[in-house]
């Protein structure tokens, strides 16, 4: 799946809906699917946040630039034995703010993404961040009897 979202606070909701429908169409199990929906929601939320500056007391947000875009890409990979996994890429063009500058209790998003996936890689650059979420493997669906 491919989606280009405006980096605004409604983006995580749109991303959740797209991911959920796409994984359902690919017959992903409910528990695995909901874990991935949660992980992608967190990744997209982080991307939205990268597009905003914050006030010193962490109470006010102001856009750094006109809202950019967040690109969301999903791909199912099927192994030789029928096992599948899915890989999502979330790319933004904002600015990453080190967690230390954001005050306490800021680590939850990362913990959620890590728990809900097999592997999460994050690449920060001054002009944007790319996150790759690799799902846990899913056994192939049982064959249907005729």
């Amino acid at each position: 799946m491919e989606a280009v979202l405006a980096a605004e606070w409604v983006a995580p909701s749109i991303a959740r809906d797209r991911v959920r429908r796409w994984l359902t169409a690919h017959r992903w199990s409910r528990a695995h699917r909901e874990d991935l929906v949660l992980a992608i929601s967190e990744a997209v939320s982080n991307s939205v946040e990268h597009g905003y500056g914050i006030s010193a007391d962490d109470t006010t947000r102001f856009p750094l630039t006109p809202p950019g875009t967040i690109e969301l890409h999903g791909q199912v990979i099927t192994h030789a034995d029928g096992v599948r996994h899915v890989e999502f890429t979330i790319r933004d063009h904002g600015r990453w703010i080190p967690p230390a500058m954001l005050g306490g209790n800021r680590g939850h998003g990362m913990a959620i993404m890590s728990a809900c996936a097999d592997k999460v890689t994050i690449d920060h650059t001054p002009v944007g961040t790319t996150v790759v979420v690799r799902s846990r493997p899913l056994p192939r669906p049982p064959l249907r009897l005729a």
Partner: protein
Amino acid sequence: MTVRSSDQDGAIVLTVSGDVDGLTASRLRTAIAEAFDRLDGRLLVVDLTDVTLLGSPGLRILRNSADEAVHHRGLLPLRIVVDATRPVIRPIEIVGLDQVLALYHSVDHALAGGDAPIAEG
């Protein structure tokens, strides 16, 4: 996302429905703050059983609110109601908030008084 406030059995119950994410979390924070202001010694129960997504912004507000109730306002500990079969319990357990928050299976349990949090069950 909606937050409905009702007075029950000498407590305030906030019933939260829908997705709690970056777009909607500030409304939950406001509702909790308003409830704190009019608690007047009563218990505050936050019912999350109708929540369909609890993102990290929501987790942050729950943790901060629980902390504020006890450590900054001298109120009774906040009580959170979660249905163990819904997606809400998953992020709470991932970040370990089930060890910090007073969690209950139902509003009735939360209102019953006495200590019966899920984490100790």
